[in-house]
């Protein structure tokens, strides 16, 4: 939520209708938990430059066990500065705190209520507001109704009574936070490949604009690679369109790299040359093979056995000629002849529809016809063979149609498909029969 919305009275937790009544121009976006999780993963990989023991603390936390790294980084203040600088570069806003127990550190960071000095961590823990701890709603509600506000008040209650009311988990949490009980965590193991996608808030029609999105994804990739001392030599970029197959771009670099700028420069260049078949709705960036920066690949493609079938031919044709060049024709469920056909990607199954005798050759644009002796004329006088096939439709998309279609024949024996516009009675040729 931004400031403008806040000024208009929009609040977190408000009903959508109320919010929209307050701010008519309000734009709502869904949270994207998968992307948030992915970003957290990238950051975890990045954080491995500071300590081998990084733990995920979802949904938005990272725990760095730094005790062992302090000597290497010449003390806590310097380590913190390095972490802060790195994060600032990524333009992420982060709340950071440290404490002897992971839970306490996590809660301090989450609430932003850090002890003034590390030594005062326990009094600070007592002061933490219960309502802001990442606990089940049910607990917080029960604590609220008991009038409990701060963690200290909770800690003051008999532990057995608490256990009876909130279950053993709460006691365990309290003990772990205070360091009375061990709190073992599973360290983060970075994945062996990188894959991220991003849904665009608005379908994007211009390749230039895609550059910005790409920049963000490459930035994330760079972060991912940096923590682990890795690089990439080839990337796959996939642009998803609505109702159309995705466009794929392979970005190759001369040697393994993790320079976001360098990758972006090449990516931008490739994008600029790309003609978008449709607006882009989502972008996916994939790096399957990660290299040590000395150039060795971590993984290799297996060789899939080739099948000499039609789909392979199609694939090859597509590869040679470009995907746009291989297409299939089919009917479309529409009354307007010019919209009653469609081009689909190979292999799609358009509906089979029975239209009454329509010509297989349709003019790209209807051709206005002259009228002689009250009859339409196309190099020869045309005789109507039929009653009108009246098409009146399409009012909703700006190409409203109101036409009477006829089959017609000339003295030459050629057959034509004509229509008369119902608005001005003008004649047009729209198709030719074979």
């Amino acid at each position, binding site marked *: 939520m931004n400031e403008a919305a806040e000024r208009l*009275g929009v609040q977190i937790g408000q009903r959508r209708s109320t919010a929209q009544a307050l701010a008519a121009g309000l734009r709502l976006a869904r949270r994207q938990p998968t992307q948030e999780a992915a970003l957290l993963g990238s950051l975890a990989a990045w954080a491995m430059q500071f300590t081998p023991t990084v733990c995920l603390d979802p949904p938005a936390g990272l725990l760095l066990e730094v005790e062992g790294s302090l000597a290497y980084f010449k003390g806590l203040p310097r380590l913190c500065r390095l972490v802060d600088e790195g994060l600032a570069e990524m333009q992420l806003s982060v709340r950071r705190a440290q404490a002897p127990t992971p839970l306490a550190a996590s809660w301090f960071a989450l609430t932003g209520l850090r002890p003034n000095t590390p030594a005062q961590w326990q009094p600070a823990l007592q002061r933490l507001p219960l309502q802001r701890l990442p606990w089940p709603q049910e607990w917080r509600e029960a604590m609220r109704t008991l009038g409990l506000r701060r963690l200290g008040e909770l800690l003051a209650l008999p532990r057995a009574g608490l256990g009876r009311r909130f279950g053993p988990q709460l006691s365990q949490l309290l003990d772990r936070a205070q360091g009375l009980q061990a709190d073992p965590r599973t360290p983060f193991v970075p994945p062996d490949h990188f894959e991220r996608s991003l849904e665009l808030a608005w379908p994007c029609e211009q390749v230039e604009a895609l550059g910005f999105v790409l920049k963000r994804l490459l930035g994330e990739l760079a972060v991912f690679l940096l923590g682990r001392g890795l690089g990439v030599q080839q990337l796959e970029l996939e642009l998803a369109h609505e109702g159309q197959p995705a466009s794929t771009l392979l970005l190759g670099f001369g040697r393994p790299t993790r320079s976001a700028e360098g990758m972006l420069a090449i990516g931008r260049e490739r994008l600029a040359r790309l003609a978008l078949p449709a607006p882009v709705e989502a972008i996916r960036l994939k790096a399957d093979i990660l290299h040590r920066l000395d150039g060795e690949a971590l993984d290799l493609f297996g060789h899939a056995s080739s099948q000499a079938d039609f789909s392979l031919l199609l694939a090859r044709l597509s590869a040679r000629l470009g995907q746009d060049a291989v297409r299939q024709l089919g009917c479309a469920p529409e009354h307007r002849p010019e919209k009653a056909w469609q081009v689909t990607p190979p292999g799609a199954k358009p509906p089979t529809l029975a239209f009454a005798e329509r010509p297989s050759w349709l003019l790209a644009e209807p051709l206005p016809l002259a009228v002689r002796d009250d009859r339409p004329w196309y190099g020869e006088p045309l005789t109507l063979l039929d009653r009108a096939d009246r098409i009146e439709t399409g009012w909703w998309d700006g190409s409203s149609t109101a036409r009477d279609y006829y089959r017609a024949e000339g003295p030459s024996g050629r057959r034509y498909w004509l229509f008369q516009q119902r608005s001005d009675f003008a004649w047009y040729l729209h198709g030719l029969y074979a």
Partner: protein
Amino acid sequence: MTPPDYAELHCLSNFSFQRGASHAEELVARAQALGYRALAITDECSLAGIVRAKKAAEEAGLALIVGSEFRLEDGLRLVLLAPDRAAYGDLAELITLGRRSAPKGEYRLTRTDVAQRSGRLLALWLADDAAGASDGHWLAACFPERAWIAVELLQQAGDRERLHDLLALGRLCGLPCVASGDVHMHLRSRRMLQDVLTAIRLGKPVAQCGLALFPNGERHLRSRMALSRLYPAELLAETVRIAERCHFSLKELRYEYPAELVPAGLSASAHLRSLTEAGLHRRYPAGVPATVWQQAHTELALVAELEYEHFFLTVHDTVQYARSQHILCQGRGSAANSVICYALHITEVNPAESKMLFGRFISKERNEPPDIDVDFEHERREEVIQYLYRKYGRDRTAIAATVISYRRKSALRDVGRALGFDEEQLAALSDTLVWWDRSSDLPLRLVEAGFDPDSHLVQLLLKLVKQLLGFPRHLSQHVGGFVFSRGPLARLVPLENTAMAERTQIQWDKDDLDHMSLLKVDVLALGMLSALRRAFELVAWRRGQPFAMSDIPREDPKVYEMMSHADTIGVFQIESRAQMSMLPRLRPSKFYELVIEIALVRPGPIQGGMVHPYLKRKNGEEDITYPSKAVEGVLSRTLGVPIFQEQVMELAIVAADYTPGEADQLRRSMAAWARSGKLELHREKLITGMLKNGYEQDFAERIFAQIQGFSEYGFPESHSASFALLAYASAWLKRYEHAAFTCALINSQPMGFYSPSQLIQDAQRHEVEIRPIDVQLSQWDCTLEPRDGLQPAIRLGLRLVRRLGKAAAERVLAQRPPQGYASLAELQRRAGLDRRSLNALADADALHALSGNRRQARWQAGGLLEGDDLGQAEEGAELVALPALREGEEVVEDYQSTGLTLRAHPVSLLRAELRAQRLLSAAEILACQDGQPARACGIVVGRQRPGTSSGVTFVTLEDETGNVNVIVWADLAERQRRELIGSSLLAVYGVVQREGEVVHLLAMRLSDRSDRLGSLSVSSRDFH
């Protein structure tokens, strides 16, 4: 060349929901204009639109054919037409069968079903391209000499072949062919709307409907000339021959009343007479006054002449049953205020005291049943309904339908979806619309929701929404209109399933029934009756003797005195804000003035400008004059100002030479004016009529303006009189038995204008003691606890505890030892309470007797719940160090758990702060001078924008001293929409307007102070 004769035999109206794109009226008018010989309305498995079509056809003088279109389970499609009454019965029965065998809104029929009812109906076969001869043979066998192939040539490719094929098929099967048009709309220009309806039906945007849309707009009523170019003359001529065979008219439907109400050997008339006479002797034990006796017999003669005895007997029987079960009920409606109804105990309005004449309300000219609505206690109406089903049987009893039509929001949503607007955007728009917005605000709201009003698509949206408004969407059941018949109802009108299992409804709505003169008894629910019955019981308990409505002393000046001070919170009908601001001015001092008060302060008379003339005349500030003796006769009882619907009718008769029948038309037009615009037709007639009789143009115009104001909202005198009785009874209770009255109102919730919180505050201001909910003392309902020599105290009941189920509460009550529970543990164990119930009680502070405060109660409750069966539960009274509750917190929790508090009013907790900002209390506002600038702050308990007030919003603010009535003009409301809609605590800066005892605060600026309330949630009740 003269175009050939033609009758359209296959035509859908918009009662074929999401298919037909024209109203029956439009179709009829168009068919008439095109010179059709007849028009069949053949809605799909429905006769729901047929009465409207009949009315239109009668007015236009067009022959109407009754029919219906069907698609059978196996795909066969046909149109069935009713040539005569018996065939009509078959058709209605077939539709009933189809509808009853499928879920609401659908139907299911097989060939067998049709074959069993094919003896008299005519059939048109809607053969598709794949039609085979076997179907034709089946039809020819089922409908010998009565089946045709419908040839529908709709300007599509292959029409010529289709015609050829169908003619051949006809020869093969021995079926003649006939032309028909598959009409879905009256004009070609409706095709956009028709496409939209298709899209709505399919639930996807028009652009994705593809071939489900019709390729062109030919399915309209086409000119005969156009038809003659398409069809062979023989096929057109056949339409007329079929039409001529259909001589059935809906007028032939003769309704027959259920027979069982009359004892064998007695005529209905004699039975009603003896019941009436016996009733009169009971009503007047000291001897029936001669005038009343005389009047009763005049009425009986009229009833006998019109054969309405059964109607009165039916109502009498229903009321009789309710009385036998001690269910309070009361009749109202034009016929209710007759001596007969008084004698039969249908109503309590003593006709000797009333000035109405029965003869005025059922007249010979009008061929329609008299109107009686009976209100029952809202919680016990179902018992009455079940009785009716038992008595008349399910095949002879059904509920009237209500036609649910497209309103602004629904039309906007459906058309918007069909045009492919984003759901999110439509939701935004829909949310932005508030119920009080006007249609003309729509473009403005569109802009607010982010639409571009000039775009082509938005223009289309507006245009189509306008067309769709008022279209029927589906049928629903009427609130309480029951229809009974002597024979099976399904041969009179089709029945269908309702959303409630075990209930059936007919396909006609109230207007249709009126028009068809079908007996309908309105079995309605009225919350006030439940409250009155409860109050009577409490009074009887307190006084130690039975107490009933008839024990209430009449015409008590102290009761009227109380009304005149607008001290009427909770009093039936006169508790609304509009009524309360009028009571001190009108100061009713006798029953008839109360009748007037109730009718006067309603949207109709307010809009018609009757209020102020009446007020002035009543206060002697204006001379009471009449333009003629005749008018004086009509208006003298209301000081020359027409207030009741009946007076408007009478005026039309005496001043503009209307016949009683025409006057009744006028009344109906008043009721339906907003829908049909027919009232304009009366304008000319009324005004010329009055001018001719020597009335001034000015007077005539004024009368017409008043009639216009009545539209939709006019109140009949008879209703008003019945309501006035209940208003008086409830006011009497409030004046003399306030505790019982409040207790009964709370126990009958939800009802009325005020929340329990408001009712309790009002009672407290009247020095009634309210005692808190207590698990040791409370019952489910609120109860009275005696206090010596004083009004009893009200003990709040467990019903007010939110989130506490009735079953759990009943266990608490059933298991409670006489001296109360010894401990929380005992309560939990004996009543078997789960966490939810126990917490609900703790939240409501109902456990204070056992645990002290609610936090301790919750802690202890928590300890009990996780204990196992072996009684390992924690020992009860473990007191732990929990933070104490501040008063503000207690108040907030009171509201959250019960919706009210007996502690300080939340605003009083903020008083010091408010005073520092010079925000006044309600009591202080009340003491302000007229025109004095003032500011107030209170909890928003009501927001109202009456249709009559040209954009004014009335806001009611509540604080610890009472209410402030705030007036917000439209421009301020628009400027400060956010504060107006969103505030729960609102500060208003404005100017006091005072007129006698009536004080308003005219808002100049609003300020949202809701944050001061913290988490206090007091929800406002918006009243329509």
